[in-house]
Protein backbone atom coordinates (compact mmCIF):
# COMPACT_ATOMS: atom_id res chain seq x y z
CA UNK A 1 0.00 0.00 0.00
CA UNK A 2 2.72 2.40 0.94
CA UNK A 3 4.41 1.76 -2.37
CA UNK A 4 1.24 2.77 -4.21
CA UNK A 5 1.04 5.96 -2.19
CA UNK A 6 4.62 6.73 -3.11
CA UNK A 7 3.83 6.13 -6.78
CA UNK A 8 0.77 8.35 -6.53
CA UNK A 9 2.80 11.28 -5.21
CA UNK A 10 5.58 10.69 -7.72
CA UNK A 11 3.27 10.55 -10.75
CA UNK A 12 1.07 13.29 -9.38
CA UNK A 13 3.99 15.67 -9.08
CA UNK A 14 5.26 14.87 -12.56
CA UNK A 15 1.74 15.21 -13.97
CA UNK A 16 1.12 18.64 -12.49
CA UNK A 17 4.59 19.90 -13.36
CA UNK A 18 4.28 18.71 -16.95
CA UNK A 19 0.80 20.19 -17.27
CA UNK A 20 1.98 23.53 -15.91
CA UNK A 21 4.93 23.43 -18.30
CA UNK A 22 2.62 22.68 -21.24
CA UNK A 23 0.66 25.87 -20.71
CA UNK A 24 3.57 28.14 -19.77
CA UNK A 25 6.60 27.12 -21.84
CA UNK A 26 7.62 29.62 -24.48
CA UNK A 27 8.70 27.12 -27.08
CA UNK A 28 5.69 25.51 -28.74
CA UNK A 29 7.37 22.21 -29.50
CA UNK A 30 8.55 21.90 -25.91
CA UNK A 31 5.03 22.69 -24.75
CA UNK A 32 3.59 19.95 -26.95
CA UNK A 33 6.16 17.48 -25.63
CA UNK A 34 5.31 18.32 -22.02
CA UNK A 35 1.68 17.76 -22.86
CA UNK A 36 2.64 14.29 -24.03
CA UNK A 37 4.54 13.71 -20.78
CA UNK A 38 1.53 14.77 -18.74
CA UNK A 39 -0.71 12.38 -20.65
CA UNK A 40 1.79 9.60 -20.15
CA UNK A 41 1.92 10.07 -16.39
CA UNK A 42 -1.86 10.29 -16.30
CA UNK A 43 -1.90 6.89 -17.97
CA UNK A 44 0.33 5.59 -15.16
CA UNK A 45 -2.11 6.95 -12.59
CA UNK A 46 -4.98 5.25 -14.36
CA UNK A 47 -3.00 2.03 -14.18
CA UNK A 48 -2.78 2.59 -10.44
CA UNK A 49 -6.58 2.86 -10.46
CA UNK A 50 -6.78 -0.53 -12.17
CA UNK A 51 -8.22 0.92 -15.37
CA UNK A 52 -5.75 -1.00 -17.48
CA UNK A 53 -7.64 -0.84 -20.75
CA UNK A 54 -8.13 2.91 -20.72
CA UNK A 55 -4.58 3.43 -19.57
CA UNK A 56 -3.15 1.50 -22.50
CA UNK A 57 -5.63 3.15 -24.83
CA UNK A 58 -4.44 6.56 -23.70
CA UNK A 59 -0.85 5.72 -24.48
CA UNK A 60 -1.35 3.80 -27.71
CA UNK A 61 -4.18 5.67 -29.35
CA UNK A 62 -4.29 9.06 -27.75
CA UNK A 63 -0.63 9.82 -27.38
CA UNK A 64 0.31 7.75 -30.40
CA UNK A 65 -2.14 9.33 -32.79
CA UNK A 66 -3.81 12.45 -31.49
CA UNK A 67 -0.93 14.15 -29.74
CA UNK A 68 1.47 13.29 -32.53
CA UNK A 69 -0.97 14.91 -34.96
CA UNK A 70 -0.87 17.85 -32.61
CA UNK A 71 2.89 17.96 -32.87
CA UNK A 72 2.64 17.90 -36.66
CA UNK A 73 0.33 20.89 -36.70
CA UNK A 74 2.55 22.71 -34.22
CA UNK A 75 5.53 22.24 -36.48
CA UNK A 76 3.57 23.20 -39.58
CA UNK A 77 2.04 26.35 -38.13
CA UNK A 78 4.92 27.42 -35.95
CA UNK A 79 7.65 27.75 -38.56
CA UNK A 80 7.48 31.49 -38.32
CA UNK A 81 6.75 32.17 -34.70
CA UNK A 82 8.17 29.39 -32.58
CA UNK A 83 8.00 31.30 -29.33
CA UNK A 84 4.98 32.65 -27.58
CA UNK A 85 4.71 35.99 -25.91
CA UNK A 86 2.37 36.21 -23.00
CA UNK A 87 1.22 39.27 -21.22
CA UNK A 88 2.10 39.63 -17.59
CA UNK A 89 -1.35 40.66 -16.40
CA UNK A 90 -2.88 37.58 -18.04
CA UNK A 91 -0.53 35.45 -16.02
CA UNK A 92 -1.58 37.09 -12.78
CA UNK A 93 -5.28 36.72 -13.58
CA UNK A 94 -4.81 33.12 -14.61
CA UNK A 95 -2.85 32.20 -11.49
CA UNK A 96 -5.53 33.84 -9.38
CA UNK A 97 -8.27 31.90 -11.16
CA UNK A 98 -6.38 28.64 -10.70
CA UNK A 99 -5.67 29.35 -7.03
CA UNK A 100 -9.31 30.17 -6.32
CA UNK A 101 -10.49 27.02 -8.06
CA UNK A 102 -8.06 24.78 -6.21
CA UNK A 103 -8.97 26.42 -2.90
CA UNK A 104 -12.69 25.95 -3.58
CA UNK A 105 -12.19 22.33 -4.55
CA UNK A 106 -9.95 21.69 -1.59
CA UNK A 107 -12.50 23.14 0.78
CA UNK A 108 -15.26 21.08 -0.77
CA UNK A 109 -13.33 17.82 -0.96
CA UNK A 110 -11.74 18.06 2.47
CA UNK A 111 -14.94 19.17 4.20
CA UNK A 112 -16.17 16.62 6.77
CA UNK A 113 -19.45 16.08 4.90
CA UNK A 114 -17.56 14.51 2.00
CA UNK A 115 -15.30 11.76 3.26
CA UNK A 116 -15.40 8.70 1.05
CA UNK A 117 -13.62 6.00 2.99
CA UNK A 118 -14.65 3.03 0.89
CA UNK A 119 -11.70 1.00 -0.32
CA UNK A 120 -12.35 -1.27 -3.26
CA UNK A 121 -11.85 -4.97 -2.82
CA UNK A 122 -8.86 -6.35 -4.64
CA UNK A 123 -9.98 -7.71 -7.98
CA UNK A 124 -9.92 -11.49 -8.40
CA UNK A 125 -6.98 -12.90 -10.31
CA UNK A 126 -8.92 -13.83 -13.43
CA UNK A 127 -10.64 -10.41 -13.65
CA UNK A 128 -10.02 -8.68 -16.95
CA UNK A 129 -10.71 -4.98 -17.14
CA UNK A 130 -10.85 -5.06 -20.94
CA UNK A 131 -13.35 -7.90 -20.94
CA UNK A 132 -15.56 -6.22 -18.35
CA UNK A 133 -15.55 -2.93 -20.22
CA UNK A 134 -16.19 -4.66 -23.53
CA UNK A 135 -19.14 -6.55 -22.15
CA UNK A 136 -20.92 -3.39 -21.02
CA UNK A 137 -19.86 -1.31 -24.00
CA UNK A 138 -21.78 -3.36 -26.55
CA UNK A 139 -24.79 -4.02 -24.35
CA UNK A 140 -25.60 -1.35 -21.79
CA UNK A 141 -23.96 1.42 -23.74
CA UNK A 142 -24.91 0.34 -27.26
CA UNK A 143 -26.67 3.64 -27.95
CA UNK A 144 -23.71 5.64 -26.69
CA UNK A 145 -21.42 3.50 -28.83
CA UNK A 146 -23.47 4.33 -31.94
CA UNK A 147 -23.66 7.99 -30.99
CA UNK A 148 -19.88 8.13 -30.53
CA UNK A 149 -19.51 6.63 -34.00
CA UNK A 150 -21.78 9.36 -35.38
CA UNK A 151 -19.72 12.00 -33.58
CA UNK A 152 -16.52 10.65 -35.14
CA UNK A 153 -18.15 10.66 -38.58
CA UNK A 154 -19.23 14.27 -38.05
CA UNK A 155 -15.68 15.17 -37.09
CA UNK A 156 -14.31 13.46 -40.20
CA UNK A 157 -16.77 15.26 -42.48
CA UNK A 158 -16.14 18.58 -40.77
CA UNK A 159 -12.36 18.36 -40.76
CA UNK A 160 -12.19 17.33 -44.41
CA UNK A 161 -14.73 19.93 -45.49
CA UNK A 162 -12.63 22.60 -43.81
CA UNK A 163 -9.18 21.65 -44.98
CA UNK A 164 -9.67 20.07 -48.39
CA UNK A 165 -8.50 22.52 -51.00
CA UNK A 166 -9.68 22.13 -54.57
CA UNK A 167 -7.43 24.33 -56.67
CA UNK A 168 -8.70 25.28 -60.12
CA UNK A 169 -5.18 25.06 -61.58
CA UNK A 170 -4.65 21.62 -60.15
CA UNK A 171 -4.19 18.86 -62.73
CA UNK A 172 -5.86 15.70 -61.72
CA UNK A 173 -6.20 12.28 -63.26
CA UNK A 174 -9.60 11.05 -64.32
CA UNK A 175 -9.24 7.27 -64.57
CA UNK A 176 -12.65 6.84 -66.18
CA UNK A 177 -11.72 9.15 -69.04
CA UNK A 178 -8.26 7.62 -69.31
CA UNK A 179 -9.60 4.12 -69.77
CA UNK A 180 -12.22 5.28 -72.26
CA UNK A 181 -9.66 6.71 -74.64
CA UNK A 182 -9.46 5.00 -78.06
CA UNK A 183 -6.57 4.90 -80.42
CA UNK A 184 -8.21 7.28 -82.90
CA UNK A 185 -8.63 9.97 -80.23
CA UNK A 186 -4.95 10.36 -79.75
CA UNK A 187 -3.19 9.05 -82.81
CA UNK A 188 -3.11 10.69 -86.24
CA UNK A 189 -1.39 9.00 -89.12
CA UNK A 190 0.35 11.25 -91.59
CA UNK A 191 1.94 10.19 -94.85
CA UNK A 192 5.47 10.71 -93.59
CA UNK A 193 6.42 13.67 -95.71
CA UNK A 194 7.54 16.75 -93.89
CA UNK A 195 5.27 19.78 -93.90
CA UNK A 196 6.29 22.38 -96.44
CA UNK A 197 7.80 25.46 -94.83
CA UNK A 198 5.45 28.41 -94.83
Amino acid at each position, binding site marked *: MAFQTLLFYLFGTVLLAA*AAAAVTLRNMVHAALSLILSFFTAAMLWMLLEAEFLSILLVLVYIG*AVLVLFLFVVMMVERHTPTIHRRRNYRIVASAVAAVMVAELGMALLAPDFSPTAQPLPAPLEYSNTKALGSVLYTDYALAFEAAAVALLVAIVGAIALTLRVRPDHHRQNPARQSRVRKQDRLRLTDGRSEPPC
Partner: protein
Amino acid sequence: MLSLTHFMLLSGALFAIGVAGVFVNRRHALVLLMSLELILLAVNTNLIAASHYLQDLAGQAFALFVLTIAAAEIAIGLAIVVVVFRSRETIDAEDLSEVRG
Protein backbone atom coordinates in the same frame (compact mmCIF):
# COMPACT_ATOMS: atom_id res chain seq x y z
CA MET B 1 -3.67 5.06 2.48
CA LEU B 2 -4.90 6.45 -0.80
CA SER B 3 -8.52 7.45 -1.10
CA LEU B 4 -10.84 8.97 -3.68
CA THR B 5 -10.14 12.40 -2.21
CA HIS B 6 -6.47 12.18 -3.18
CA PHE B 7 -7.25 11.53 -6.81
CA MET B 8 -10.01 14.12 -6.93
CA LEU B 9 -7.73 16.78 -5.51
CA LEU B 10 -5.09 15.89 -8.08
CA SER B 11 -7.53 16.08 -10.97
CA GLY B 12 -8.95 19.28 -9.53
CA ALA B 13 -5.49 20.83 -9.65
CA LEU B 14 -5.05 19.57 -13.21
CA PHE B 15 -8.41 21.07 -14.16
CA ALA B 16 -7.39 24.40 -12.64
CA ILE B 17 -4.13 24.37 -14.60
CA GLY B 18 -6.13 23.73 -17.78
CA VAL B 19 -8.55 26.59 -17.10
CA ALA B 20 -5.69 28.91 -16.16
CA GLY B 21 -3.99 27.88 -19.41
CA VAL B 22 -7.04 29.04 -21.35
CA PHE B 23 -6.81 32.41 -19.62
CA VAL B 24 -3.07 32.85 -19.95
CA ASN B 25 -2.93 31.81 -23.59
CA ARG B 26 -5.80 33.77 -24.96
CA ARG B 27 -3.42 34.89 -27.70
CA HIS B 28 -2.35 31.51 -28.85
CA ALA B 29 -4.70 29.03 -30.50
CA LEU B 30 -2.56 25.91 -30.24
CA VAL B 31 -1.79 26.31 -26.56
CA LEU B 32 -5.49 26.92 -26.04
CA LEU B 33 -6.14 23.51 -27.57
CA MET B 34 -3.53 21.99 -25.24
CA SER B 35 -5.26 23.53 -22.23
CA LEU B 36 -8.55 22.07 -23.38
CA GLU B 37 -6.88 18.66 -23.61
CA LEU B 38 -5.69 19.01 -20.02
CA ILE B 39 -9.21 19.86 -18.87
CA LEU B 40 -10.56 16.70 -20.46
CA LEU B 41 -7.70 14.69 -18.97
CA ALA B 42 -8.69 15.98 -15.53
CA VAL B 43 -12.30 14.98 -16.15
CA ASN B 44 -11.26 11.50 -17.21
CA THR B 45 -9.00 11.04 -14.19
CA ASN B 46 -11.89 12.06 -11.97
CA LEU B 47 -14.25 9.61 -13.65
CA ILE B 48 -11.81 6.71 -13.49
CA ALA B 49 -10.94 7.36 -9.85
CA ALA B 50 -14.62 7.49 -8.93
CA SER B 51 -15.25 4.37 -10.98
CA HIS B 52 -12.46 2.52 -9.13
CA TYR B 53 -13.49 3.50 -5.64
CA LEU B 54 -17.21 2.98 -6.28
CA GLN B 55 -16.56 -0.37 -8.00
CA ASP B 56 -18.79 0.71 -10.86
CA LEU B 57 -17.84 0.43 -14.51
CA ALA B 58 -20.07 3.29 -15.68
CA GLY B 59 -17.37 5.85 -14.95
CA GLN B 60 -14.82 4.04 -17.08
CA ALA B 61 -17.34 3.72 -19.91
CA PHE B 62 -17.99 7.46 -19.70
CA ALA B 63 -14.24 8.13 -19.72
CA LEU B 64 -13.92 6.03 -22.87
CA PHE B 65 -16.55 8.15 -24.62
CA VAL B 66 -15.02 11.39 -23.38
CA LEU B 67 -11.71 10.21 -24.83
CA THR B 68 -13.40 9.49 -28.18
CA ILE B 69 -15.06 12.87 -28.30
CA ALA B 70 -11.85 14.60 -27.22
CA ALA B 71 -10.11 13.10 -30.24
CA ALA B 72 -12.96 14.21 -32.53
CA GLU B 73 -12.94 17.66 -31.01
CA ILE B 74 -9.21 18.10 -31.42
CA ALA B 75 -9.45 17.06 -35.07
CA ILE B 76 -11.99 19.81 -35.72
CA GLY B 77 -10.00 22.27 -33.63
CA LEU B 78 -6.80 21.62 -35.56
CA ALA B 79 -8.74 21.90 -38.84
CA ILE B 80 -10.02 25.33 -37.81
CA VAL B 81 -6.50 26.37 -36.77
CA VAL B 82 -5.22 25.32 -40.19
CA VAL B 83 -8.01 27.28 -41.91
CA VAL B 84 -7.18 30.41 -39.92
CA PHE B 85 -3.49 29.92 -40.52
CA ARG B 86 -3.99 29.65 -44.27
CA SER B 87 -6.09 32.77 -44.47
CA ARG B 88 -3.93 34.90 -42.22
CA GLU B 89 -0.54 33.24 -41.87
CA THR B 90 -0.86 33.89 -38.15
CA ILE B 91 -2.68 32.25 -35.31
CA ASP B 92 -2.11 34.95 -32.76
CA ALA B 93 -5.64 35.55 -31.57
CA GLU B 94 -4.96 39.18 -30.74
CA ASP B 95 -3.56 40.15 -34.10
CA LEU B 96 -7.02 39.36 -35.31
CA SER B 97 -8.27 42.73 -34.26
CA GLU B 98 -11.46 42.88 -36.27
CA VAL B 99 -13.24 40.57 -33.90
CA ARG B 100 -13.87 42.03 -30.50
CA GLY B 101 -16.29 40.95 -27.84
